[in-house]
């Protein structure tokens, strides 16, 4: 039986299939089910910066709106209580419970886009028992005047603040929307990221013409979307000191294998588990085992990075070659893409 054990962020994992942040880990039952299904580690659902801030401001508003306004009642609550926002509170409790309930590493996920209060939340997460922190930096620069460098600097700044506040490993989950994704990844690696998670999925808001409203867009990922992260993992493998985690589009054990071949240390999935149920994790792990067997690998270390871009290769040429090859295959499949207009 092949050896699936691996390391991610310096943590020893029984296998490289990791449950990424999703509603599955909202409740303890889900966390237990994921562990029982055999995942190597669990990234808890994300604590959203916006949610925490909204709650902070809401509670402030609730308390302050009526203070010092009427002579008989200068306040309405005992003074010593300044509640931690409910979302943060819930989250920390969930970490504590999850850590106690399962024997695989539990990674906390912090989702936000400003340097603000990340550090203190991360420290609380560490105290609550998180084995590592995944920073889900999700900046959508809605201001079209924001220069790209500012956005990149903000990532590094946030990483520095969190690294300074915790001793557990910190991974950064990135968006693919940088003009030079590789350079950003290397900067973060050099800035001390213990791992990079590629990529964050951009949940595009959409317009509903029926209700004339803007609706938050939520769609599960598909295997086709795996190509972009896989390409970047293949490029970054061997160039970064930290771990590489692949996420997006993991549907089958073969998808897991493909990511490992590209150079991923672990492969994360949420969509497939949401689509097929938590037990699908078992299918992935067992499938990976079977694939390794079939292909004659005794250990996944022998697989990892086998199809990565070689260190000495010219990445541009690699990309270009892939692009040209893809175009050619496209022509063969669909006919000329460029000829339709003319």
């Amino acid at each position: 039986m092949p050896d699936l054990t691996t390391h991610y962020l310096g943590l020893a994992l029984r296998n490289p299939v990791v449950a990424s942040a999703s509603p599955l880990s909202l409740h303890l039952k889900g966390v237990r089910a994921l562990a029982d299904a055999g995942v190597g580690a669990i990234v808890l659902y994300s604590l959203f910066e916006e949610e925490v801030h909204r709650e902070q401001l809401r509670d402030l508003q609730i308390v302050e709106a009526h203070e010092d306004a009427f002579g008989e009642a200068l306040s309405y609550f005992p003074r010593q209580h300044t509640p931690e926002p409910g979302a943060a509170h819930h989250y920390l409790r969930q970490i504590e419970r999850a850590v106690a309930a399962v024997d695989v590493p539990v990674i906390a996920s912090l989702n936000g886009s400003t340097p603000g209060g990340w550090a203190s939340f991360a420290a609380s997460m560490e105290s609550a028992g998180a084995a590592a922190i995944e920073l889900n930096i999700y900046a959508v620069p809605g201001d079209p005047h924001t220069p790209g460098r500012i956005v990149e600097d903000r990532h590094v700044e946030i990483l520095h603040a969190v690294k300074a506040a915790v001793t557990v490993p910190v991974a950064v989950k990135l968006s693919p929307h940088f003009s030079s994704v590789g350079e950003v990844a290397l900067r973060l690696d050099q800035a001390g990221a213990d791992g990079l998670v590629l990529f964050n999925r951009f949940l595009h808001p959409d317009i509903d013409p029926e209700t004339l409203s803007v609706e938050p867009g939520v769609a599960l990922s598909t295997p086709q979307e795996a190509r972009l992260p896989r390409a970047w993992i293949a490029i970054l493998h061997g160039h970064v000191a930290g771990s590489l985690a692949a996420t997006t589009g993991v549907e089958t054990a073969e998808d897991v294998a493909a990511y490992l071949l590209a150079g991923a240390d672990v492969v994360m999935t949420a969509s497939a588990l949401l689509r097929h149920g938590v037990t699908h994790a078992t299918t992935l792990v067992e499938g990976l085992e079977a694939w390794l067997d079939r292909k004659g690998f005794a250990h996944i270390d022998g697989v990892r990075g086998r199809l990565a871009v070689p260190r000495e290769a010219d990445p541009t040429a690699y990309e270009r070659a892939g692009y040209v090859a893809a175009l050619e295959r496209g022509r063969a499949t669909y006919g000329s893409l460029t000829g339709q207009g003319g």
Partner: protein
Amino acid sequence: MRVTIDGNEAAADVAYRLNELCAIYPITPSSTMAELADEWSSHRRPNVWGTVPTVMEMQSEGGAAGAMHGALQGGALSTTFTASQGLLLMIPNMYKIAGELTSTVFHVAARSIAAQGLSIFGDHSDVMAVRQTGFALLSSASVQEAHDLALVAQAATLRTRVPFVHFFDGFRTSHEINTVELLPDEVLRELVPEQLVREHRLRALTPERPFVRGTAQNPDVYFQARETVNPFYSRTPGIVQSVMDELAAHTGRPYGLVEYAGHDAPEVVVVCMGSGAQTVRETVTHLVGGGARAGALQVRLYRPFPAAELVAALPASVRRVAVLDRTKEPGSNGEPLFLDVLTTLAEAHQRGAIETMPQVIGGRYGLSSKELTPGMVCAVYDELWEEYPRSRFTVGITDDVGGTSLLWDPDLVIEDPAMLRAVFYGIGSDGTVGANKNTIKILGSDPKVHAQAYFVYDSKKSGGLTVSHLRFGPHPIRAPYLVSKAHFVGCHHLGLLEKIDVLASAGDGATLLLNAPQPADEVWDALPRPVQQAIIDKKLTVWAIDADAVAREAGLPGRTNTVLQTCFFAISGVLPRRAAIEKVKAAIRKTYGRRGSEVVRRNEAAVDATIAALHEIPVPAAVSTDREPDPAVPADAPDFVRTVTAAMMAGRGDEIPVSALPVDGTYPSGTTAYEKRRISDLVATWDPDTCIQCGTCSFVCPHSVLRAKYVGEDALTGAPAGFPTAPLNAAGLPDTRYTLQVYAEDCTGCSLCVEACPVSPVGEPHRKAINLEPLEPQLQAQRGNVAFFETLPLAERSRVDFGTVRGTQFLQPLFEFSGACSGCGETPYLKLLTQLFGERATVANATGCSSIYGGNLPTTPWAKNAAGRGPAWSNSLFEDNAEFGLGLRLAADLHTGLARERLRELRDVVGPELADAILDARQVREFELTAQRERVAELLRRLADIGEVGGPAVADLRSVADHLLRRSVWIVGGDGWAYDIGSGGLDHVLASGRDVNVLVLDTEVYSNTGGQSSKATPLAAVAKFASGGKATAKKDLALQAIAYGNVYVARVAMGADPHQTLTAFREAEAYDGPSLIIAYSHCIAHGIEMSKGLDQQYRAVASGHWPLVRYDPTVRARGGNPFQLDSPRPRIPLGDYVYNELRYRMLRSSDPAEAERLLALAQEAVDQRWATYEEMATRPPARYAADARRKG
């Protein structure tokens, strides 16, 4: 250690450290002391002997006094904090405690007593009412004294065995913030040695050394036994002075029982006690500096009266003495301090201790926190220098009836020129007061700076005015009166300039800061003419900022406190600008640090953005407008409203003379209608095309600003252009238009209507048929619309469907535009009450929120209709409301009986047919009541025709004929009243079998005094006095009442089921016997977004926390089950309801394990209660108690 705190904290800090038990009950202005003790105890703060004091909330002050008495007899060091009516409720026990020579100190923030009207403000009426109990009375005049003398009182009571009341002026001292030196524990222990504590303990009841205390005594010995205590009282003054001397040795702060200050050989002396004594002493220093032979005598120990010390302290040169009393004893020969001083001097003169008997005159001042300014004090000295001074006088008012009042100079300022004075005008929710408290702490933290702050609040709970009075300077600040001639005036809402004379407090050359939405170059022209003129005349420097915009951009919409505080530091020059900004930021981090980094970040961003947005406004040489502010009330308002009410509204109530005020506390109804407050920039706006005319918005509106009418199309002739209407969608009334009028100037923008509205325009799911829109663009149009709407006829009551929410919208509310919190959960029920029964209702209202928004001057919301009829409303006390209402019922029943008897006697005279019709009339349905009202009117016409020749029977009948129409008696109050202080009375009244209707507006907490726990507070909720989470379940008042069998009981929640609410109100009122409605009232003290109040009501019901029930004894009589469960089985977990509220979330963050434990227990309790209710709903009727009252 030097701190900046208020008087309540100063006193409580010592009281807590020197006691083992605090028996508490909330009452303004002393509540803060109890709250602090509770908080300290929950933080496990020990007293000076290492014990964490027990803090026990009781059901009333009477209960607190009883618990105190017991604890003292048990040997515990015990204290309490109270004021006003609370102190009066303690009187019976005070006699006992004193009679048994028991050491204790009651700390009292002295307050007026309710007489012609309630007042929460400060004077000595309460403490003077206990001067005969045997308690010693020790008076503090300042925040520092409140701290120091709290210790003196505690040390003296243990040394003398005489119990003490330690008092200081409510609000003026209890709420004044000043720099204070805190007494260290060592000094407390030094003055209160443990030996004294052990002696106190040894006097306790114990079965090891049993004795009997509290015997009944007979004529043979009672008198002599009463005289046994005299030596203890004789020794007390000397002991108090020795304690004061010991304190001085430790602190360098000397105090005397009676302290003289002023000229060495004065001719005239003013005697005063409390904070006023500070003003008198400061003024006398000023006068003596000008060469006057004047002096001041401050009395600190009032009981036992220090006669010898007073004679000794008074210089022999004195020829005239004026004694100032801060109380009123109608009918007495003089107020108490005056009589004491006069008696003392007369006796001293009799025995030759003083050679010449000075002339002694007595005056009243400062009732209900009326100002005592240096100008007023000078007026008292001037009177003493008159050839024939008045023997009795008042100062601070214009008494044009008794001619007692002295004239004073309002412009006299005697303050230290090195002191900076600032006044800030804000509105309740804008954070002005909070920012100023912060400013005081920032400046007071500098050891070279002394700081003082005092805040004046509005009586309205929403959108009320706050005025902050701040002083800073290098010397201690002894100025217990409002700031005048300020160096800095901040007007934090431009609209205030239109309503009150903001610049009256500005000194010449002062700096004026305006928060104005206009660009800087338009600000000047936006000011009304009188304001421009005052700026020019006083040579003010004007700065302006759009603080709302800065705050909004920083992500703090509506919170301008940080921005305006920064402006103050930037332009007042009180500190160098850079240093000041750093201190503001440090204070932000301290204040908001625990509230989260984002809150800190946004506030800091607001500070950074402020300076750039602050502009100096050039002041031209002449005014640029002739625009005058709108008059406070319309020109066609009644005389009283125009002269008296309007003056109060404009902040000129102090100028109203005695003659203008009612002699017996009787005021006209419905005066809020004249006060267009415009407190919200966003107001409800109706969309007639989308509206389905369901009436829900109008039903839930807490402020009665949504009024519906239906009229024939011809009635709309002459309507203003754009007057919104829609075809009436009810069947059977063709050619009829429906209109929903928003009283836009009265709308508070609470948005409950928007939340409640069930429909949206097609394609606009986020809008409703009623939405919040800016007021300004529609203001003029809405004024015209309201004026026209009021000319439209009301629906005939007998044609309205009272049984549906849709129908009730056409009934005129006779409770309107109250000053309750925006989005209040209580007032919709009161409005409904008046719509259904207001024309024939009398209302007994317990003290609390509902009596404040219902009855606090200047304007009151209980109104009358065009025929002049409406609810007659009164407030007696907090504790007696059920009994008070029962009294109204009993009187009504007596008069109904008399009317019927006389009518029978006069049957042939008035016409048998009419008489019989009246006597036999059924009066339940509205058309029956309408018919009866017409019959009674006809009866009165016939009686008038008969005239006096009809004899006494006719006169009698005319005087009580209105009782032939069934009167609806309502007893209204909150849960603090119904569950706690008034519980015994309520229980008795429900048991009386009489036809009263009790409405409990259950906010599950003492809302009016700031959110203290009551027995209605649910398990697991945090409240003041239950800061660790309430560990007992909410009392099931409904089940208690149901147990009687003949009480109609309903539990309702308008937000969950408005129709059930309506049904319950109608059934309760129609029931011929006692009725109890317990109404869920969401409240700011729950920690919710008030716009979600109705949703929260829904969740309360859906979770099973608030099951809707009705118990109707008449159903049992008809053979049915009287207990009706109106809400479905709980369908959401309790957590989904409670964790929407801060009061529950607090515990979850402070003590998660306890929160989890209590929530589990609360869920269990919900499940158990539901099972009980379901069982009750299926019981055979015979298992319920029968109504045993005799019928007919």
